[in-house]
């Protein structure tokens, strides 16, 4: 379905009566089925969010909202800032912040049966994967916003959040799931059983469902290429650019590298001028002027940092050109 056609067929409100609304409702249900099959949930466990990061609040606070039972929130120092905000916002809440090892792994084995655990499948900055999910815990919120369909939910998940951009879908769409087994209560004021006040853009939902279908089909053929590209980048940087600090390998579509004595702001700007869009975790490139808490937690260099996302369409030729530009630019900035 082409984008203009999606907008044509998705304007009616799927909750109303009438033929157009009914067919819009069918599209919504089909989309839920599609996401459920790729994400490993039931279709009636899925809710769409127009603000993906609202899902951190819904997913975690909805599990804590149980006055009869005193609970602790357990999370890690490489979690997203949204998780820190939730831990800070509730003064009565007992919180435990676990520290990641230098390899990025977090040990959840000390969790208690009554704990609510925020568990990150894959780190958005480094790609580092948590291989051992918490086995204990009354409830587990799974942050799948960086892994998308690449990593499976742990069996004991309670709530989970994905971001449509991880399968090259439109931005501004979160997929939020509440397990039927979970003891979850909406932390938002509500009169009925709706999880999200909504309405969420149906065109975005349908476009994202089409994107996830084609992304998953492509991933089968392209995963090996992406892993090889990641390896090439690491190899090149280690061999050709001195004083570089690479984050440990995780999911291969993500890579984080820092260069000593280099301003990330200048590096990112120069790379952008050469046609390469890269992100950075350095303080000078952040809105709050703070260095990346993830890099600092792992003891990695925060200055001169670049974060790369390798896309399905990225080619070995793209990377060769990029790496040559990177080397020259780092040398040039260090020479100043």
């Amino acid at each position, binding site marked *: 379905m082409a984008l203009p056609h999606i907008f044509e067929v998705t304007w009616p409100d799927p909750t109303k009566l009438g033929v157009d609304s009914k067919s819009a409702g069918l599209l919504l249900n089909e989309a839920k089925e599609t996401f459920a099959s790729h994400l490993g949930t039931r279709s009636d466990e899925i809710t769409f969010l127009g603000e993906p990061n609202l899902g951190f609040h819904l997913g975690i606070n909805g599990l804590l909202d149980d006055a009869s039972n005193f609970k602790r929130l357990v999370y890690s120092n490489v979690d997203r800032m949204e998780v820190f905000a939730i831990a800070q916002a509730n003064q009565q809440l007992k919180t435990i912040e676990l520290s990641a090892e230098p390899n990025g792994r977090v040990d959840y084995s000390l969790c208690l049966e009554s704990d609510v655990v925020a568990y990150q499948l894959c780190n958005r900055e480094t790609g580092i994967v948590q291989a051992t999910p918490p086995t204990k815990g009354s409830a587990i919120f799974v942050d799948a916003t960086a892994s998308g369909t690449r990593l499976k939910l742990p069996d004991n998940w309670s709530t989970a959040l994905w971001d449509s951009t991880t399968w090259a879908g439109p931005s501004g769409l979160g997929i939020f799931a509440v397990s039927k087994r979970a003891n979850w209560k909406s932390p938002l004021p509500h009169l009925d059983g709706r999880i999200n006040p909504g309405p969420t853009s149906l065109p975005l939902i349908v476009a994202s469902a089409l994107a996830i279908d084609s992304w998953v089909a492509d991933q089968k053929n392209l995963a090996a290429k992406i892993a090889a590209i990641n390896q090439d980048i690491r190899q090149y940087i280690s061999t050709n650019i001195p*004083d570089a*600090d690479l984050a440990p390998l995780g999911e291969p579509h993500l890579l984080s590298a*820092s260069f*000593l*004595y*280099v*301003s990330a702001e200048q590096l990112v700007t120069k790379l952008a001028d050469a046609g390469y869009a890269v992100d950075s975790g*350095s*303080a*000078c490139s952040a809105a709050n*002027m*703070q*260095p990346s808490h993830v*890099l*600092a937690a792992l*003891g*990695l*260099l*925060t*200055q*001169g940092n670049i974060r790369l996302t390798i896309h399905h369409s990225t080619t070995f030729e793209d990377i060769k050109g990029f790496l040559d530009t990177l080397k020259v630019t780092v040398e040039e900035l260090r020479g100043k």
Partner: protein
Amino acid sequence: MQTLDCLGKRCPQPIIELAKALKVAPIGFQITLLSDDPATEPDLSAWSRMTGNSIKVVELNKYEITKLAD
């Protein structure tokens, strides 16, 4: 001990100036670095691991560095 005042200077400037000050100095040379940039503490620790020099946090925004490698 020599003091390198980088207060008010943003990352990566303090570490660049520190490396310059150490470049011509002999092994064992010590210097105090003053820096209030939020990236200095994590980056000094990473710099120490990468370059083999030693750092000590004296107090907030004050670090003592010993050159141990060229």
